């Protein structure tokens, strides 16, 4: 039965990781706007001279630098 105890504790630890990931995503504002991204993905990418990387980075909207 020792192995059962070990497995149970392992599974709790692993699922805690998922919980923490969820909490992190929520606090970063990933669930704030569920409507606009579904529209945004329909637009063509812009091919301009400016660096592409800058506007591809998804900023968090909660102003973490405050």
């Amino acid at each position, binding site marked *: *039965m020792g192995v*059962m*105890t070990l497995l*149970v*504790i392992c599974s*709790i630890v692993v*699922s*805690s990781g998922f*919980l923490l990931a*969820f*909490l992190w995503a*929520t*606090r970063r*504002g990933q*669930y*704030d*706007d*569920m*409507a*606009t991204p579904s*529209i*945004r993905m*329909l*637009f*063509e990418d*812009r091919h301009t001279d400016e660096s592409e990387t*800058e*506007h591809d980075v998804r*900023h968090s*909207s909660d*102003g973490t*630098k*405050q």
Partner: protein
Amino acid sequence: MKQVLDEQLAISEVQPICAHCGDVCNDVRITADDLVFCCSGCQSVYEILQTNNLCDYYSFDHKAGVSMKGAMTDEYAVLDDPDIERQFVEFDSGTTRRLRFEIPAMHCASCVWLLEQLDRLNTGVLRSEVDLMRKLVRIDIDPRRTTARAVAALIASLGYRPLIRPEGAAGSSVAMRSIYVRLGVAGFAAGNVMMFSIARYVAGPDGMMPSLRLVFDVLSILLSIPVLVFSASSWWRSAWGALRQRRLNLDVPVALGILVLFVRSVVDILMGTSEGFLDSFTGLVFFLLIGRLFQQKAFDAVSFDRTYRSFFPLSVRVSKGEHEESVRVDNVHVGDTIVIRNGEVIPCDAMLVSSGGYIDYSFVTGESVPVECVEGRIVYAGGRVVGGRLRMTVTKAVSNGYLASLWNNADASVRRTSLLDLADSFGAWFTIGAVGIAGIGGLLWLPDISMALTALSAVLIIACPCALTLAAPATLGTAMGLLGRRGIFVKNVGVLLDIAKTNAMVFDKTGTLTESEHSLSWVGPEIGNELRGSISAVAMQSTHPVSRSVERLFGASLQTVTDVEEHVGAGIRGIVNGRVIAIGSASFAGSRNAYVEVAASVAVDGRPIGSFRIVPQLRDGIDTLVGALRRDHDVYLVSGDSSRDALAFEPVFGAARMRFNASPHDKIDVLEQLARQGRHTVMIGDGLNDAGAMRAAHVGIAVTEGTATLVPACDVIMGGETLQDMANLIAYARNLRSLIWFSLVFSMVYNVIGVALAITGTLSPVTVAIMMPLSSLIVTAVSVVGARWYGRRSQWVS
């Protein structure tokens, strides 16, 4: 994009459609590049987009553009004031400043696309990101290269006027995040605890090794503690707050129920008497949070606070010697000379020092015919200037103005809604009843202390009114979202229960039963098209609203007018095709028919030939609506307007239930009197002049054209075209109330039977463990499906 434009052109053969906003071009039409525009504003937006190669805008939605008719763009000078700008700044690092604007006009994929391309129109913009549901745009700017004012003016020039209002931007996502986090923790704990419990139930009392059982017990308790402390914390706070004020609300028995559930489970586990109910405890908190989520989602989707636009100006131009300066309204002093332009609202009581133009007081008094501006006249806060630019001397500072007094009256009392009433009174009786029964049950077992405690806690657990805290938000939240999609915006869920109770209804007239724009009819002998054109041509020289209506009635005219002279307060005279045409008051046109309903008389070469009469534009279906409402409501008409339309309304309301020339305070009196008679009242109005009355009524409903009007103090906002759905709304609200009662009774019976069976040992513990969350699931399903079903079954007009 080409294809969309081609399609629009094809339609435009028959009925010209503006290439920018997609509206039908009625009178004014501008043609450029083979495209048709309804106004020069729309054309200029198109040109901006074309020069910047942004015409993809038109490919995402047919009616992408926002009509530019009547738009003003230079109202953003206030943003140069750092105090005001700060309200729109989310963070500022010196090189990057993130601005947040609310833009009520955004509505489709094209809007999102264009607003996220702002960096191509202004190099100072670093990036912009849209939140379509909350109608927000976040714009990062480089403060060294551009200003908030320039950005605001830029998006306004594209047709997306940002909301500038004194109380600062509302509506944050913090509430939603907090619910998600609590829900995540509760769900995590509930899932894991349930696994342990089911393993134990299946194994039976002796089927599990004591060491493993110990691990399960310890883990269950450890997982439940964050649920108790963190996920359920809002109930502790609410219940504790109520108890400290010596009140009982519905959260008291809920808090008591879950606390007893937790304590009893932990005691049982520690004593080794049973496996406890920690699975039920965590599951219950999880479902209660889902109820909260419904409430918050509905609130966000309807975005009540964001659907109306500011009415009161933030700043005003003060004339100082040669130049004018933009000053915040609270810094305007008595004696200052202010300048108010066409379309702007007068922020404070003042005396005119210039003539010309008119003031429309329909917001404040409900009177639909505007007042002439003559030098020396006192004008009141809340009037809107039509046609002209007025200078005036401030006689009262802003906070003393008529508008401010109405506003303050309206906001003075904090209203309690029915859901709170229901929940609070229900909560009080419930708590007293449950604690009483639990106490008696405990006393009956008394010599046997452990049995007494068992009975006591069992009753408290059954009596936990979770179904009500789950059913009401789920039902009403679903209904709120449904109504929002039909153009009926409800402030909060409790309002729907208020609506279900009403039995007296008071209508305002102007803008509510009638369209806000009045129209005219010609009274007099038939006149030929050529003379009609001449009259219209003279009327077009004036900005008076009546002249505009004449132009609409007779059609725009290209005839040349010479020797135009406009006499303020009297009328206008001009020569067309050699004939002197005079339009104006009876004395001005030499007519003897000076009735109130005559808007203007007309004379040709000094001989009166007829007059224009104001026709109230009744909204469609008002008589059937009032007829339907009168079956179970007393319906009254109380208007601030003069009684000139009384005859039109008499067959609908009956002479005894109509009242005209009522001041805003008279309206409040009418409603208070009805309330004293024990009636549950609804006030349906449109303007600020009804704000006090809406506050005095149990439910205040505002009828608006579009979303352009600010309506303080109302509980429901309906579009003018949805007014006919009023009777359906009331029927729907009553159905919802029955649905909530059904859920409540169902869950009580379910819990009583379930626990009775569990105590007598008829059911196996596994069944009980499944049945407990099942009841919450059933209540949620009945609430959501029922609210949708009733909504679909109603014969909505719009």
